């Protein structure tokens, strides 16, 4: 149990690369915190600095108020689960799990009892005498967890612990990790670049970009109130749709049509007098098939017509993909997100829109469809700074 504080922690690698810049995170005792961000944003580096596997260039790391910068990993009383599991191949499962206890010179009887206990929790009892190489991926993952929990450390650090598992097992292990952490109440820092893990596991999520903390908050808060374009585009799956728009005469002219300013939007745009460019962000679930709505509701929002490129029926709802004419929203943040998502096949002209419609929708692939969205739900961003203009934090 411990409180972990990162105070302006910076990491500069010998080759000059800056992997973390003035990272400030206060992790409360017993909290489950997620570090998330695209590849190369400094998640592992930050975690390794907490672990003591990487030196801290400047700033301070405190655990329970005590400065940790100069302490060796073994003196920090922190356990780590690696992406590759890092099980000792020459030791049996039992020896693997007992290893930290043996190093701590715990008496044999206690070691046996603790390992048996952990094995029971993780459902590994019948595998205790096998070698890691004879285990399945999920079992290896559990051994790695077991090795971390046996000695009841102050904190757990996990670096993408589930990313080597197949999709189904990952979902299963995700729930057990979450349950285990709740049961033990141990402070946990968890690195992932999986959307779902970030949203479902943590008490709070830290979004990193190029070594800078973008925003820290509960998953729901980050979803509803992203601080900037980057967080908005990163959190949520499928991700938020962005369109360029121009503000003039109390209206937003966008490629989806004219959006009349609601009170909320007018407030953030300071009355909406001055002409300016903004980026409009709309979540897929804020769209609806106009045919399903009554006239009164329809009148409160914006309706546009487009041709359905692809329709995916998920049973509970339908995902409809459109291409909307007009320019694409441009910003460095969006470009970076596109690279991370591996999206290089974006249409030449117009922008792709993902919408989540009710299952009752009659939309068909290749056919035109009227789509409605609620202007009160849209977010507005400043194209140059990327800041969320609608942020009310």
């Amino acid at each position: 149990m411990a409180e972990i504080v990162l105070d302006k922690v910076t990491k500069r690698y010998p080759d000059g690369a800056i992997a973390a810049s003035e990272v400030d995170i206060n992790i409360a005792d017993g909290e489950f915190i997620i570090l998330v961000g695209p590849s190369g944003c400094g998640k592992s580096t930050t975690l390794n600095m907490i672990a003591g596997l990487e030196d801290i260039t400047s700033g301070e790391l405190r655990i329970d108020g005590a400065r940790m910068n100069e302490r060796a990993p073994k003196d920090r009383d922190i356990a780590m689960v690696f992406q590759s599991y890092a099980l000792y191949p020459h030791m049996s499962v039992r020896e693997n799990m007992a290893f930290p206890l043996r190093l701590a010179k715990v008496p044999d009887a206690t070691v046996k009892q603790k390992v048996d206990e952990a094995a029971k929790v993780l459902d590994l009892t019948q595998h205790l005498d096998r070698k890691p190489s004879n285990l399945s991926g999920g079992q290896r993952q559990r051994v790695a967890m077991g090795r971390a929990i046996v000695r009841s450390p102050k904190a757990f650090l996990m670096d993408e612990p589930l990313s080597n598992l197949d999709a189904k097992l990952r979902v299963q292990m995700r729930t057990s990790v979450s349950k285990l952490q709740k049961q033990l109440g141990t402070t946990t820092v968890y690195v992932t670049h999986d959307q779902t893990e970030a949203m479902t596991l943590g008490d709070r999520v830290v979004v990193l970009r190029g070594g800078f903390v973008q925003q820290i908050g509960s998953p729901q808060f980050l979803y509803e109130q992203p601080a900037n374009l980057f967080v908005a585009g990163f959190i949520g799956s499928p991700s938020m749709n962005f369109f360029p728009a121009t503000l003039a005469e109390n209206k937003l002219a966008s490629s989806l049509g004219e959006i009349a300013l609601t009170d909320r939007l007018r407030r953030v745009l300071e009355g909406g007098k001055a002409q300016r460019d903004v980026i409009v962000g709309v979540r897929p679930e804020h769209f609806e098939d106009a045919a399903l709505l009554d006239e009164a509701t329809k009148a409160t929002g914006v309706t546009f017509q487009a041709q359905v490129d692809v329709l995916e029926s998920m049973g509970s709802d339908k995902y409809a993909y459109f291409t909307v004419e007009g320019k694409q929203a441009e910003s460095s943040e969006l470009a970076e997100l596109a690279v991370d998502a591996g999206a290089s096949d974006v249409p030449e002209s117009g922008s792709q829109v993902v919408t989540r419609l009710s299952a009752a929708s009659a939309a068909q692939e290749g056919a035109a469809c009227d789509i409605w969205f609620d202007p009160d739900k849209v977010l507005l961003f400043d194209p140059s700074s990327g800041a969320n203009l609608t942020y009310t934090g």
Partner: protein
Amino acid sequence: MAMIGVATTRRKIQWSFLDLLVVVYALVPVLWIVSLSFKSKETLNDGNFIPREWSIQNYVDIFQTNEFVRALFNSIGIALISTFIAVVIGTMAAYAIARLDFPGKRVLIGVSLLVAMFPQVSLVSPLFEIERALGLFDTWPGLILPYVTFGLPLAIYTLSAFFKEIPWELEKAAKMDGATPAQAFRKVIAPLAAPGVFTTAILVFILTWNDFLFAISLTSTEASRTVPAALSFFTGASQFEDPKGTISAAAVVITIPIILFVLFFQRRIVAGLTSGAVKG
């Protein structure tokens, strides 16, 4: 189905035949030596493959001559010391090559490759002169020196290949589990590296054990002559005796450690020992 069955059977027969041919080709001379070594003096030249009269007299004889016993002692001592030195230095060099990025790493690898390729015979006369001048000629260090030189590249190559296979994340994991760097090395890295070091040691040992060129050119007396060189000086008990039998017996004796090593070493190198540490 039937066609495939026929084809594979025919294939099996073809391969078995080829394998047999290779084995016979390789083993006949060895068996011939073994056969010669067990023949009595009278039947030595009868040309029979299987001795008509079995005798271990040749073995008794060689162990009674100081010439052979002393050479065997030299061989064992020199090979062990050279192997030890080459493996210790090689382990450090290979560790650096596998783990660290340092200036001149490529040059080091290049130079060691160069040494391995170097025609040994062109070094014999300069070494002869140098060792005579330094007083190393016909001493143990005089042979250990070139053996370490040529054993090192071999050691560096095999060991760095082994070290690259070790998942170094294990070292980090051990540190997180509370190990000091020394403990991490002793309890995690060393057990994983051991088979590699052992294999390398055997390869270097065989290299030095089998050497004839340096052994014959850099020695002149029993003080440092190893078995391969001593064999060529074997004479019979009397000048009229044919030394063929004793030479064969000596050859068999020095082959035994190699055979033992190879058998032992096949079991020791557990393939995929490190697999299972990484990924799922």
